[in-house]
């Protein structure tokens, strides 16, 4: 399931027009279809189709505001790609449990010191 989701992200990103739509949403969130279509040289139908693919990959999220649909960029899937191939080489992994244990023990020590 995770793999399928990742396939959809890469497919969605493999198109210049869709990447441009993401750039536009990065610059300004909450745009309507009309705003996103302006100055793109693409029909509204084409933009709708691209948005649907981006939504299917969870790269775009929308909500209603009155009669309008406002679109937003969801950066999480792109962040996950960066994390998978870049970040793990840069940062040491630490066990979350160990971190919790350290913190709770430090707190215990503080209490005892009071």
């Amino acid at each position: 399931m995770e793999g399928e989701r990742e396939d959809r992200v890469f497919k969605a990103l493999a198109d210049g027009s869709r990447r441009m739509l993401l750039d536009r949403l990065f610059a300004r969130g909450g745009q309507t279809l009309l705003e996103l279509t302006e100055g793109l040289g693409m029909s509204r139908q084409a933009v709708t189709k691209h948005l649907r693919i981006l939504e299917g990959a969870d790269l775009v999220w929308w909500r209603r505001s009155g009669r309008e649909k406002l679109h937003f960029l969801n950066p999480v899937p792109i962040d996950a790609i960066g994390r998978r191939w870049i970040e793990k080489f840069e940062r040491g992994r630490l066990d979350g449990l160990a971190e919790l244990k350290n913190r709770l023990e430090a707190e215990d020590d503080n209490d005892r010191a009071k």
Partner: protein
Amino acid sequence: MTTTERSEFVYVTYIRTTVERLWEALTNPEETVVYWYGMRSTPEQKAGGAWSLVSRDGQVMDSGEVLEFDAPNRLVLRWRNEWKEEYKAEGYTRCSMDLEPFGETVKLTVRHWMEGDGTQFIGAVSNGWPQILSNLKSWLETGEIILMRYK
């Protein structure tokens, strides 16, 4: 972060866990400390209750109010920065967290937006959310996190 005109951010992620387990991870300060830059998020368990985000050394970083506490599906916080004058001056933001079962996962949708017109604080917070959510996901799925400092 480049200058943008964004005062509302959305993050959608899927976590292999249950709604109840994720709710616990989001609302229990002893657990937020693990994946949220060492911060304790302390929502009172009711609408109208107090909320704060407290650093490891006890400093209140952000604070506000619990607007909705609908366990285990929806949490909404009113949220203001407490440590940086220009952020605090922008006033309150709102943050909603929605949890929905989705196949073998839970779909978590975090929305964070300004009540007013400012964009500085929300821009700063928006840098942090992907890391926090990524930590949360790996914490719940593998019991491990990649610890990161707030940039």
